[in-house]
């Protein structure tokens, strides 16, 4: 139980240091406020349009192609064939709105009859419907060769997600915020090495694992509290949790453990507190390819593989998915990645730390 004694000491050293504690707990609040407030309510352009094609005809395909050629609209690659599926995605916030082409579209065109198109959108964002309606009316009239009254009916739908932008950024901010534990953990170990405290402890029977666990322990409460802050402040700013909140918490917790593990490794390798700055050489690029701010889809394949091997993208993808309603089975693989990384990092930390105990 030596790790517990070392852990208690480290816990007291942190909690009796108001500046450090303020940094550790104030940072999540500040992060969340700044980013979510800045991102709140924005909508990316151009407008992304999803289409449900129940007609499955050459004519309907041609019409969709026509829509896609319009600059203001970015056509979603997936063309739904079932309305119910599109409706579900709309409710869960995966899409903002969709255009419904009913069966009989081709016949109606050939017969020069009036066609009825439904435009379903999020009730929380009526501007989209109003913006898109005239575009579709114009394209439709031209395509069908009928004068406008082409009727496009607007159908507002209640989406479960109040603000997708917040739902997109919050997991990224939380994961990036938890990555800062890397430098803090490394700094505390390196500081104790520099002051000679570790050398003094190395003359006691404590083992390498006692040190790694003992130095990780005080960060567990920090991790729990900061995760609660990320979720709490996020929810106050419009974060919608559709899935299981406990699962989101679990993901962030595992992510935090990975960060602490990396911090232990960095702390084992560096000699002085001032060298803890090197953590940022890793933190910043890792955050860049974590999908926290922008998707990695368009990055070179090598970068994509690196990103996919690291734990961060799994934490962000999984937490986004759960926030937007995914079940646990959909994120099991991500959880395995996170657990695997945490185990590997702590084992590596112990091995590396052992080497520093005698020189």
């Amino acid at each position, binding site marked *: 139980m030596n790790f517990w004694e070392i852990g208690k000491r480290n816990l007291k050293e942190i909690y009796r240091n108001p500046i450090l504690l303020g940094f550790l707990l104030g940072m999540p609040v500040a992060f969340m406020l700044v980013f979510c407030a800045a991102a709140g309510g924005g909508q990316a352009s151009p407008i992304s349009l999803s289409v449900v094609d129940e007609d499955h005809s050459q004519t309907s395909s041609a019409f969709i192609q026509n829509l896609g050629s319009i600059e203001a609209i970015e056509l979603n690659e997936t063309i739904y064939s079932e309305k119910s599926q599109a409706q579900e995605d709309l409710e869960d916030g995966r899409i903002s709105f969709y255009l419904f082409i009913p069966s009989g579209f081709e016949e109606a065109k050939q017969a020069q009859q009036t066609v009825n198109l439904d435009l379903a959108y999020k009730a929380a964002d009526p501007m989209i419907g109003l913006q898109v309606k005239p575009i579709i009316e114009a394209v439709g009239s031209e395509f069908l060769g009928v004068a406008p009254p082409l009727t496009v009916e607007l159908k507002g739908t209640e989406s479960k997600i109040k603000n997708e932008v917040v739902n997109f950024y919050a997991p990224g901010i939380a994961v990036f915020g938890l990555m800062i534990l890397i430098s803090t953990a490394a700094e505390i170990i390196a500081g104790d090495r520099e002051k000679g405290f570790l050398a*003094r402890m190395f003359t*006691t029977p404590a083992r390498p694992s006692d040190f790694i666990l003992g130095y990780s322990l005080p960060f567990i409460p920090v991790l729990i509290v900061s995760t609660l802050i990320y979720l709490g402040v996020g929810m106050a700013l419009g974060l919608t949790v559709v899935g299981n909140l406990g699962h989101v918490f679990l993901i962030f917790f595992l992510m935090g453990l990975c960060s602490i593990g990396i911090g232990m490794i960095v702390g084992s390798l560096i000699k002085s507190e001032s060298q803890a700055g090197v953590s940022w050489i890793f933190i910043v690029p890792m955050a860049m390819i974590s999908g926290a701010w922008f998707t990695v889809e368009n990055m070179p394949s090598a970068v994509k593989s690196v990103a996919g091997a690291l734990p961060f993208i799994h934490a962000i993808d999984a937490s986004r998915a759960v926030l937007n309603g995914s079940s646990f089975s959909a994120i099991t693989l991500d959880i395995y990645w996170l657990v695997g990384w945490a185990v590997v990092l702590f084992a590596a930390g112990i091995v590396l730390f052992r080497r520093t105990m*005698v020189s």
Partner: protein
Amino acid sequence: MNAVQTLKLTKKFDSLVAVNGVDLEIKKGELFSLLGPNGAGKTTTIRMLCCLLKPTKGTASVLGYDIAKEPFEVKKLIGVSPQDTILSERLNCWENLALIGKVHGLSSNEVKERSKELLETMGLMERAKDQVRKFSGGMKRRLSIAMALVSDPQVLFLDEPTLGLDPQARRTIWEYIAELKGKKTILLTTHYMEEADFLSERIGIIDEGRVVALGTSQELKTNLLEMRSMVVSTENLTAEVMENLQSKYSRLEKDKGRLKIYHKDLDFKEIVDYLHSRGVTVYSAALEQPTLEDVFIQITGKKLRD
């Protein structure tokens, strides 16, 4: 079995040989001092015995356990007070002592009892509940030594225990260490002559990584110091007299009217008679007891505090 035994113990840092083939045998219950100037290899020796440094060559054992092969067995038996006072700054005295005690496997009750005793002995009880970062240097040093003792170790390593302390604080620590004599095996390093002289049963003089002399304080002074010295208080010493003396005796030191003469088999009467015959006024003359400092100068050719 010796409490501490080293055999050709050597530590090299790149091209620097910090400890060079040191052979030591410290018996159980003995208080042994390693005396030497800064950089002589005292701390490096202690750090190897505490399993913090791997010897480049040679071996060492503590109570029969090899420091390189069984470091955790060694660590269970030793208490260490490092040269720099190292404490957990935001912990109070009780918490600092409990940390070391518990890691050595003491129960909460044992820790409490030992801590109480040590805090009283070291005069820290009044401030025991304060965070130690507010303490003076002397208080920190006393707590640091208490931390080395809290686990009731069989072998105690005290690296410069009184370095940088005022004379009064030094005295307190000496008295406490003296009380431990015979109860614990203590290896102490120091570059204070009077500390080694006052405390230890045996002294090893270490210089440039080698043990250059070994024995009790008295043995070192009598056996090794062939040179005798005498101090003469005079007036009107002429240059001619000085020249004559210089040619005849090994070493002269002159400080105003005070003349110190070093020589093997020094003849007190001969010198005084010679000075009188040359009309030099002699106020007083006395043979001097050799000091450890003299021993050190004799062996290494340099002063200890350089």
